[in-house]
């Protein structure tokens, strides 16, 4: 089956994407999830994730870690080619890791890799990385792209080792990809892929039905309904994010845990799922989504089973028996979050609390809500990037720069520090679970669900794989041959 590309050499599909790749194409600098999931096909690191969220060898054939967790040795796969035809050498690896760690500029492009003490080329096929202190998550950063040392400007000349090579980019219109014939692993099946930017969510269905796109990742449940009976299969997965009504713990009523708990009791995740995601979401009770099977604790879903009376009495205890008013800030471009907020407004009425929705632009949300923390409550989904528990839980530390909910609990800080400083997997897992329990108990925010993810794929295409992180694996797609 390895040579399907050869069978249908002229195969071409168009995939709709919601945003442009507008933050550049330098793999070490891009941040937008939408860009990273596309570049997943173009660049590879020493390791890469598979669809189960496990790290598998990529440009490194194998690796070894010392017992102290400070030295890692990577053996490179031989004969791997860059898209420009040159061969991947140990020098390229050293160059790329140094660039990420900011060894020349002093400013690491990947913050976590500032921890790297040195990167050395042991021989032509071996690279050794030394860390300043042990880091359980280090390997997940080894998925970052390896680029040729000779490439002066990665921004404009996009040269990676992935199954697809970059052809062109017309801003606001499209990106063209072409399968890479000299790929080291299983080659892509489809020759040409056009990524078409469909920024208006309302026109997605029309474009799909009208035939100007063959596939669109992440459509809503209503769009799924609209596509019923058409040429499209719907693949269902999860978004892998923590959707919650995030409460600003510094804002007056929400500074009282009782009030936060009352809100949690008032919110019915199942009702929200029914309205927002056609009943398909997965309920969550803390800051972890089920894809992290290791840490996900289903029992936390029952901490606050909907109970209006309980909520009211909690409010009374907190001195808000006559309710209060607050506003929910929601970025207007995320329809599911807006819809969630609308349902929450109705649910709040039941406990005598008046909630108002304040729609803002995504950018205003970023700067005012996320950065300045100038809000009362907000509905948003938080994802894990990289795919580590730390990425999800770090932000609840009292002094974390991204602790936008202003959560503050010494108990939590201690648990988190414990988790981060151990290299023992079991101990770490236990500490993380403790963290999640604290978040749930203290009602840091009202956790709702992991949203379902629907992918519309034309019936002529098969092989779509869901990844538990931001990645679209185009190489696994193939055309149905009849």
């Amino acid at each position: 089956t390895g040579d399907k590309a050869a069978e249908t050499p002229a195969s071409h599909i168009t995939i709709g994407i919601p945003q442009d790749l507008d933050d550049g194409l330098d793999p070490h600098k891009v941040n937008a999830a939408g860009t990273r999931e596309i570049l997943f096909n173009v660049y590879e690191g020493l390791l890469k994730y598979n669809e189960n969220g496990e790290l598998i060898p990529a440009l490194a054939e194998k690796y070894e870690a010392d017992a102290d967790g400070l030295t890692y040795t990577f053996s490179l796969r031989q004969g791997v080619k860059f898209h420009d035809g040159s061969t991947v050498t140990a020098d390229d690896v050293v160059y790329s890791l140094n660039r990420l760690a900011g060894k020349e500029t002093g400013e690491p492009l990947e913050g976590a890799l500032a921890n790297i003490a040195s990167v050395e080329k042991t021989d032509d096929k071996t690279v050794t990385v030394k860390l300043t202190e042990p880091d359980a998550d280090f390997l997940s950063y080894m998925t970052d792209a390896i680029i040729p040392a000779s490439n002066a400007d990665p921004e404009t000349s996009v040269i990676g080792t992935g199954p697809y090579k970059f052809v062109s980019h017309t801003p606001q219109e499209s990106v063209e990809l072409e399968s890479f014939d000299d790929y080291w692993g299983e080659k892509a099946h489809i020759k040409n892929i056009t990524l078409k930017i469909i920024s208006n969510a309302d026109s997605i269905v029309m474009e799909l039905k009208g035939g100007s796109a063959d596939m669109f990742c992440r459509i809503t449940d209503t769009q799924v309904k609209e596509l019923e009976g058409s040429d499209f299969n719907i693949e269902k997965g999860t978004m892998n994010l923590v959707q919650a009504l995030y409460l600003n713990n510094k804002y007056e009523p929400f500074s009282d845990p009782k009030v936060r708990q009352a809100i949690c009791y008032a919110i019915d995740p199942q009702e929200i799922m029914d309205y927002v995601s056609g009943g398909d979401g997965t309920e969550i009770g803390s800051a972890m989504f089920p894809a992290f099977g290791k840490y996900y604790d289903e029992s936390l879903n029952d901490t606050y089973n909907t109970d209006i009376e309980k909520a009211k009495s909690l409010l009374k205890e907190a001195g808000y028996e006559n309710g209060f008013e607050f506003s929910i800030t929601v970025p207007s471009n995320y329809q599911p979050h807006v819809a969630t907020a609308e349902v929450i407004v109705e649910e709040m009425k039941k406990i005598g609390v008046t909630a108002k929705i304040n729609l803002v632009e995504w950018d205003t949300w970023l700067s005012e809500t996320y950065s300045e923390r100038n809000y009362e409550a907000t509905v948003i989904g938080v994802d894990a990037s990289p795919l580590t528990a730390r990425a999800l839980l770090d932000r609840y530390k009292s002094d974390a720069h991204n602790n936008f909910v202003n959560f503050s609990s010494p108990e939590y800080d201690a648990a988190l520090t414990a988790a981060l400083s151990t290299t023992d997997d079991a101990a770490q897992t236990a500490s993380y679970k403790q963290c999640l329990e604290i978040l749930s108990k203290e009602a840091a925010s009202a956790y709702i669900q992991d949203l379902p993810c629907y992918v519309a794929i034309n019936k002529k295409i098969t092989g779509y794989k869901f990844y538990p992180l931001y990645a679209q694996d185009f190489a696994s797609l193939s055309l149905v041959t009849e």
Partner: protein
Amino acid sequence: MKIKSFVKRFFKKYHGFNFVCGLVICGIIFLAAFIAVFHTPYGSTEMNASLKFASPSFAHIFGCDNYGRDIFSRVLEGIRNTFFIALTTVFIGTFAGIVIGAGCGYYGGRLDHVLMRVNDALFAFPSVLLALVIISLLGPSSFNVTIALGIAFIPSFARIVRSEYKKQAALDYVQSAKLMGAGDLRIIFVHILPNILPVLMSSVMIGFNNAVLAEAGLSYLGIGVQPPNASLGRMLSEAQSYIFTAPWYALFPGLMIIIMVLGFSLLSEGISENS
């Protein structure tokens, strides 16, 4: 008795197909807006999962939306909000427009020149961005949207009013009023204003329609009336995603916008025809 004769005179003066149609449509819309303040058949934000996308029926004559909310009630509320926004917008625009335009047109000179240049620059500035700026300053709420739109409307009104004042100021009756000893303010507001009313009326109507459409446009971009409150523009833009599953969701607010705009333009047509 007096009222009756007033009504009689009114209809004697204003008649014709456009006027009557316009008056009837606007009357119904006004009534709907008025009733919606006190009562709608269902709560306009009341959700009901079992009625999601229910098609029009006797209980819900316009059907239900994606939350199972009664579209008819929402349309009523939408008419009220849209009506209020458009009215206030036009009021702000007209009022400021009259003050600026009258001053510039009547006095002329340097000030006129400078103000009109500023006016032109504002005119060339996209109103979406202007609204965005104002809303960022004031925070989003339907009241602030109204203010933002109102301010965005000032330049066009000021321009129209100014040219009308310029025309009127050149007429002899204005000189005659000056000779009588009437002050400038009295001349501007008591003598001239009634004469530009017909032009003003029709631009107020056009302005009203533009306000309805602009509000719809802003809601389409997410900076209009905030959910879960309804406005016709907001409903229309929400409904777009469901055009296949629930075409009625888009149809009714869309029709209402058309009818409302139609009513007002007929009315304005009727008024200018008669005067």
